[in-house]
């Protein structure tokens, strides 16, 4: 088995066709008939541009407009005065067309490939692609016609260029393996758009295989098998069927409401870490953001982020979400994080120490900067403030008091904000579960953080291998805490969500539905999976299962019962 980068999900099984790099060497000679050389070069460019436009048109029809723009960019690049214009000047000076093309392209390749900007670095591979395509025309080298490979082909090549990718016939190419390229390269983007499994950056793979070798491409795990044994093949044939079935099934849920089998409406939100992730949440069909971690502003920084820096980040996320809810968790760090400009003291027991809301309330000047930035950003969408690590009602009251002061200031300054901005409580400690009924009278909403709730309830450090077996949200103690928090919220009439990993767990979802959870906040890629699972359960079925499970006194029985009832 070979390992590479998982670039496009799915399982591909087929027969290998290698795309070998062709010999494009030439002799750089001086030319005497400059006019003829320029005409030869012009024809090569014209043919290239014409083919590129035709390919872009195909891609636009079969894949999408965005993807076709990559190719159109190639035509624009070569037509540029500093590209072809410069090349013609070199031919005027007596260089041959091949040398002129290579000279100018290599210079720009050098500039772009060393730029400190990911997007611009990608332009270097575009330039290399343009160079090779036109060089082939000048040298009259014919490509393997990728558009003509038979059904069930696994393409193996050093690098998949956009012009190669655009010739791919989706029905015929079962998988793609390359020696270079990352998950954000054009090839990866196109492979995903075409839904062809792809594993990139497998070292030396072109020389390790022969044409017609059998290959398995696991684009989900990043694994490649060449000439696999029968049992491996059988396993992956099953895996492929399962993957395709699931993908087709999930597609039905795109753009749909999240409904239970009874037709009751619930919500699937997303957990995000930066404003850019909000775009992903939208693309994955999230109905809001249930947890926007604000730590990135503090950790990827050299100074305390200013109000303006924070405001811009929150505003960006809110605008991206187009009026959908964005729950912003205020700073959640302490002595376990080393942030040079913040003077956290090293503590014996940082997880039980001076952190999160405790640190923030002790440093109100710093905390008010963040609360003010969020409140100002609330003018641009539906923002909510979430307070982490709450253990007393007074903590919620204190935060609400700060927010009220900030609102007064903003009113006086005439700065717009959402008067109704809610302040909620991240229920993630044993204390918050125990006093959930009291907290629910003060907080505008609850969000259950199952990761910490499990740790604090079970008194377990998940990183300690000797006790990690106790760390599970399916422990009866944790399930009871979750049930109690949700019940308290329902009793008080406030909304309750969950933003831990458990919210997307197919075994946990029916229990949460029975307890009455409203909002499930998950990793963006799991939105459709969670929506699909919810659609399969009715309240009565979920209640029956929950009643049985909540009477069990050990995790083994709980898991066995949930697995037996699971609906995949």
């Amino acid at each position: 088995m070979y390992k590479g980068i998982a670039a496009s999900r799915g399982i591909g099984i087929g027969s290998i066709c290698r795309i070998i790099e062709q010999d494009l060497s030439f002799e750089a000679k001086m030319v005497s008939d400059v006019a003829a050389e320029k005409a030869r070069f012009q024809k090569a460019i014209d043919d290239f541009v014409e083919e590129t436009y035709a390919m872009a048109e195909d891609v636009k029809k079969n894949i999408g407009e965005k993807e076709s723009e990559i190719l159109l960019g190639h035509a624009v690049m070569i037509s540029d005065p500093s590209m072809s214009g410069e090349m013609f000047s070199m031919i005027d000076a007596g260089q041959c067309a091949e040398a002129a093309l290579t000279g100018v392209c290599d210079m720009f390749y050098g500039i772009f490939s060393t730029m400190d900007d990911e997007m611009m670095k990608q332009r270097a591979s575009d330039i290399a692609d343009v160079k090779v395509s036109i060089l082939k025309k000048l040298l009259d080298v014919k490509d393997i016609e990728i558009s003509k490979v038979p059904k069930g082909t696994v393409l193996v090549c050093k690098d998949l260029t956009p012009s190669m990718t655009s010739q791919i016939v989706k029905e015929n190419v079962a998988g793609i393996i390359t020696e270079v390229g990352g998950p954000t390269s054009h090839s990866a983007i196109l492979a995903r758009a075409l839904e062809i499994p792809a594993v990139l950056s497998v070292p030396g793979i072109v020389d390790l295989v022969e044409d017609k070798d059998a290959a398995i491409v696991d684009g989900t795990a990043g694994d490649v098998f060449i000439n696999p044994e029968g049992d491996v093949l059988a396993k992956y044939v099953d895996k492929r069927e399962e993957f395709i079935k699931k993908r087709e099934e999930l597609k039905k849920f795109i753009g749909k409401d999240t409904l239970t089998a009874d037709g009751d409406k619930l919500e699937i939100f997303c957990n995000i870490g930066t404003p850019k992730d909000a775009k992903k949440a939208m693309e994955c069909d999230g109905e809001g953001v249930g947890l926007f971690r604000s730590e990135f502003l503090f950790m990827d920084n050299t100074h305390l982020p200013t109000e303006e820096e924070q405001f811009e980040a929150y505003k960006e996320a809110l605008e991206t979400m187009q009026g959908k809810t964005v729950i912003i968790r205020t700073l959640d760090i302490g002595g376990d994080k080393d942030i040079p400009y913040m003077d956290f003291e090293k503590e014996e027991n940082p997880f039980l120490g001076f952190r999160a809301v405790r640190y923030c309330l002790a440093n109100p000047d710093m905390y008010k900067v963040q609360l003010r930035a969020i409140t100002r950003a609330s003018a641009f969408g539906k923002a909510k403030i979430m307070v982490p690590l709450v253990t007393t009602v007074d903590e919620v009251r204190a935060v609400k008091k700060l927010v009220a002061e900030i609102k007064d200031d903003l009113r006086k300054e005439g700065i717009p904000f959402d008067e109704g901005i809610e302040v909620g409580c991240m229920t993630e400690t044993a204390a918050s579960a125990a006093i959930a009924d009291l907290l629910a009278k003060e907080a505008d909403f609850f969000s259950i953080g199952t990761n910490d709730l499990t740790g604090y309830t079970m008194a377990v450090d998940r990183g300690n291998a000797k006790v990690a077996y106790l760390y599970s949200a399916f422990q009866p103690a944790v399930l009871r805490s979750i049930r109690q928090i949700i019940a308290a919220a329902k009793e008080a009439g406030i909304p309750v969500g969950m933003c831990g990993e458990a919210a997307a767990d197919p075994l946990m979802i029916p229990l949460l539905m029975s307890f009455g959870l409203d909002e499930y906040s998950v990793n963006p890629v799991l939105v459709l999976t969670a929506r699909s699972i919810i659609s399969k359960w009715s309240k009565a079925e979920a209640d029956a299962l929950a009643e049985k499970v909540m009477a069990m006194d050990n995790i083994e029985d709980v898991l066995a019962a949930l697995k037996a009832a699971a609906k995949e």
Partner: protein
Amino acid sequence: MVSKEFTINNELGMHMRPASLLSQMAAKYQSNIIVKHNGKDFNAKSVMLLMTALIKCGSQIEVVCDGPDEEAALAEITAFIDSGMGD
């Protein structure tokens, strides 16, 4: 000669698409059109040179037009940048 300063506001800055639109726009004019960024001059009629300028969201640039149709050129480029450069 006329000139104007801008702050680039679109998220991805002067990437392929805006650079290509801007260069095509600039090429229609007889005037010399220069984009100044970080103390360097870039020919606005060249998409390649515009991209090498590494103009990002938040970058300050100055556009200088010099020639018979300088006013019209600057007006069209101003409208283009103010509208978010087609993004």
